[in-house]
């Protein structure tokens, strides 16, 4: 049961919408520039530089732990049941670093560079959160 005060994202944000739509359907979506091949994270608005340069694509959903923090009390009530919560910065194989948290992994199992894969955590009918688990 999701806590009533959970800080839900605005999934209708015009820039982020493809990311949240993808997550709801079990896909990790990222954005790249067709012209340069460079990825943009955080993503840019689709009208950027006259439009037509950007596209969203399905990412591998795999990456490595770039950094992490183990959160203890006092914390937000909505996350209380997850403490100690392992907050992570994942460098996905495509390049960008995404904020997330770990599931199925104890704090003492964490390591820099460890392989992780995306896991989809459904919070509401509209909001699914991409989180991370060990890529065993």
């Amino acid at each position: 049961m999701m806590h009533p005060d959970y800080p839900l994202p605005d999934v209708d944000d015009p820039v982020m919408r493809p990311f949240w739509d993808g997550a709801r359907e079990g896909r990790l979506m990222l954005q790249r520039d067709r012209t340069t091949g460079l990825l943009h994270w955080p993503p840019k608005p689709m009208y950027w530089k006259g439009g037509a340069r950007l596209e969203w694509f399905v990412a591998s959903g795999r990456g490595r732990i770039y950094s992490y923090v183990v959160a203890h009390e006092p914390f937000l009530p909505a996350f209380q049941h997850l403490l100690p919560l392992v907050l992570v910065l994942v460098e996905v194989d495509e390049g960008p670093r995404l904020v997330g948290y770990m599931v199925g992994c104890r704090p003492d199992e964490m390591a820099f560079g460890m392989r992780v894969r995306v896991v989809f955590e459904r919070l509401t009918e509209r909001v699914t959160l991409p989180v991370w688990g060990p890529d065993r």
Partner: protein
Amino acid sequence: MADVGDDLFRRIQDRVAIVGIGHLPFAKDIGRPIADTAVEAIQLALDDAGLEAEDVDGMSMFEMESTHEVSIARRLGVEGLRWWDKISYGGGASCATLMHAAAAITSGLATTVVCHRARNRGAKTSRPWAQERELVRDDKALHVPWGLVRPVDVIGMWAHRHMHEYGTRREHFGNVAIAARKHAQRNPYAMMRDRPLDMETYLAGRPIGWPLTFYDCCLETDGALACVVTSVERARDLRQRPVLLHAVAQASGSNPVHLANYNNTPAMETTSVFCAKLLWQRSALQPRDMDCAQIYDAFTPLVITGLEDYGFCRRGEGGPFTEGGRLELDGALPVLTSGGGLAEAYVHGFNLILEGVRQIRGTSVNQVPDCKATLVTGASGVATSAAVLRVA
């Protein structure tokens, strides 16, 4: 981007001075609204300068201030307010209040500007991160929905990576906490006076956002502080020895995300890197010329990365730089000589400006002998600001 490095900026360099400072005693619960404490702090700063409210025509403050300029002006008796400004990004705004004041004064938009910060954060319910309710939008949607909300965790992410990449140790963070606490012992206003800290206690601190623990975190304080800025010409006739604003800068860095900007270039360098570059370009003085430094210390690792960012040591050397008491009063580079946010009070770094002024005046409780120049910095991670203060 054109390098504005900066002929324009010579119009500001050493052209304005901080001529008055004032603050209320810091407290866990100050018992008064900031609309009231702000005004008193400004009054104290004007008294210190030997100026009257009627002399003030400009106001520069933090965007987070809930008090209106006109309310402050009315209560103080400022008659001819003709320029004001509010600067965003919390602790990133501290030195920017000085920069904007300097720009207004040197361009003729104002003659005498009061800058201030009044903040009631002592109460636990006042923490912004404990008040997320609405849908999370824009930048915050990139990290808040996963629970990366508390600044300690956001900064912990940088700090842990720094440890991994450069071998920085918790003892290095401890050296920062202990230096700040040591300096607080002689400061009658410091919240942590009479509460010294040793390494054993530091290392046993309870985890908050591991690897950061209790003693890595700044205080939460109610406080109100202000300073008065005017032209060097006017400053000559005033009561105090003027403290020159030698150089000042404001920068947001590349690809910024409010506080959790982990995808900037170069990777994982904080906003301070960009601010430092501008600052030293604009300054005839360089890091080696600083007799002490007031480096923003919301969390201990920010001082270590700050030392690197502002060029006191190379990238990755900030940890070892803290060894051997180097940051303490008799060390090579005393930092946070009032105790800073870690041990004096956490008021978004405005107390670091006041301590910088006292060091240049020669009136600090931890006076660095013959202090001719000092660096004051704003919060790393957010869009930030920094200043070099020097003797006239």
